[in-house]
């Protein structure tokens, strides 16, 4: 469970990125975090991943206070998260399969097992046929699928995708959002940020957090009563 309690994030430049954020994300949830550019969506994900520490308040991932974690302890918590970065962060010079494998090299599994899981993940995102192609020969949409495969191969408790529709046309954006939404299982929460609010309506049921100027301006009912629901506010 990811718990954010009264979190505030002010960058060293003095810019207030987030203010008074209270949020609990439980396993099995599909959460969309929406808002305009600069509303604090990426900052919120950074808090969840321990990339930024809250200047006030607390962020807990499975009970661990992210502000207290460093080095290998932080790495251990991050291994529970399958991130899909906005800029993808795939490794040039390596194939699609190697990129997926790379995300699991340090899981202490046998290479054969990692390779099998990675191939399965690529198949799940429909890219098995391009497994051996160098990453730089793939289209942006395909690379995005590789990044998703890298995230899901790890069987994480949380899949966090930052603006996965950012560089895609509407048709491809819906495909990617649908793909991510399908990854939600009772054990896995999927958290997606997007500014394309109009695209997420078809993804129901989901939970919705709407941000503006670093503050939450709307929260779906489920966050209030603890039930899964498709109702959104705002």
């Amino acid at each position, binding site marked *: 469970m990811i718990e954010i309690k009264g979190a505030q994030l002010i960058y060293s430049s003095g810019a207030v990125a987030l203010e008074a954020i209270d949020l609990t994300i439980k396993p099995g949830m599909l959460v969309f975090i929406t808002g305009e550019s600069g509303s604090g969506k990426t900052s919120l994900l950074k808090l969840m*991943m321990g*990339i930024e520490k809250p200047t006030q308040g607390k962020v807990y991932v499975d009970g661990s206070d992210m502000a207290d974690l460093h*080095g*290998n302890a932080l*790495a*251990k*918590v*991050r*291994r*529970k*998260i399958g*991130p899909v*970065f906005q800029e993808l*962060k795939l*490794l040039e010079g390596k194939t699609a399969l190697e990129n997926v494998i*790379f*995300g699991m*090299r*340090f899981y*202490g*599994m*046998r*290479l054969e097992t990692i390779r099998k899981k990675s191939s399965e993940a690529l198949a799940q995102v429909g890219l098995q046929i391009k497994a051996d192609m160098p990453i730089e020969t793939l289209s942006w949409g395909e690379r995005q699928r590789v990044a998703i495969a*890298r995230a899901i191969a790890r069987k994480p408790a949380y899949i966090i995708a930052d603006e996965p529709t950012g560089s895609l046309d509407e048709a491809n954006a819906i495909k990617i959002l649908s793909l991510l939404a399908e990854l939600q299982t009772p054990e896995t929460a999927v958290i997606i940020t997007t500014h394309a609010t109009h695209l997420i309506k078809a993804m129901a049921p989901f939970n919705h957090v709407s941000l503006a100027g670093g503050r939450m301006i709307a929260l779906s009912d489920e966050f209030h009563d603890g039930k899964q629901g498709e109702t959104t506010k705002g």
Partner: protein
Amino acid sequence: MGNVKYYTGEVWFLLKQQKTGNAVMLMSMTLLMALLTLTIAWALVVNDAASAVRAESEIDVYLTDDTYDVVSDRIERMFQGTETRVVSAEEAYRNMDSILGEGQNVLSLFDENPLESYIEVKLPIEMAGETAAKIEKITGVDYVRDNKAVLDAVNSFTKLSIRLSLFLLAGVGMGTFLILSGLIRQSIHQYRDHIDTMQLLGAPNAFIQIPFFGEGIFLSFLSMLIAFSASAWGITALLNKMRTAVMWFPIPQGHAVMLKTAVFMAGFSLLIGITGSIFGFRSAIKKA
């Protein structure tokens, strides 16, 4: 162990990433390592030779009469730790003949053996000066000769050589350390995105660091290997030549010196490889 292939591949990848930079750094480190190989070999030769000379500490006691056994007994009783032996005039002649070597026919110019019998007193070097003075006062002793002045000179020379070697060791150590840590920092700078990604994916620190340490250790060890291979043959040949040319000076066997030098250089290169990489990695990560 499952990741050994991965680490090896990553080290190879890092080495290929900056071929020219690595080649220049490797050359610089090789030159420094060659200087260190020479220094260590020299220090070992001096140290071994000095130990051998120190073990030769002796006083030769010449008598006015032939009461050698009596005086020998007295010396051994008076000075604990000494060992005496009577050297006859004939043995002294043979010894001198062997020291002078073939072709030196100085002794044959004499009709009779010009050398006298004497008592050879072996003793620890620190006892030499004081003991010689006391032996000289024993009844029947004509005069004594000791090699303390030579041994003192050898000691001073050894100390100076060792100090110079340590100074060079520190200089070379610092030089290779700085080159290596700079190289690792450069690698990390080039590989920054990759490291960030690994950290965000939850890679343990060791997983991230090992390829860089591998790169540092490999380059350090390789430079040592090249430097040692290039200089070992020459040093061994030179020492062996000196052993035959300067027979009176106890120069150790060339291969024995080089074996010790090899062990030292291997340990040194590993130490520099590890510490230089750790320092380079830590400082680069802190800076970022």
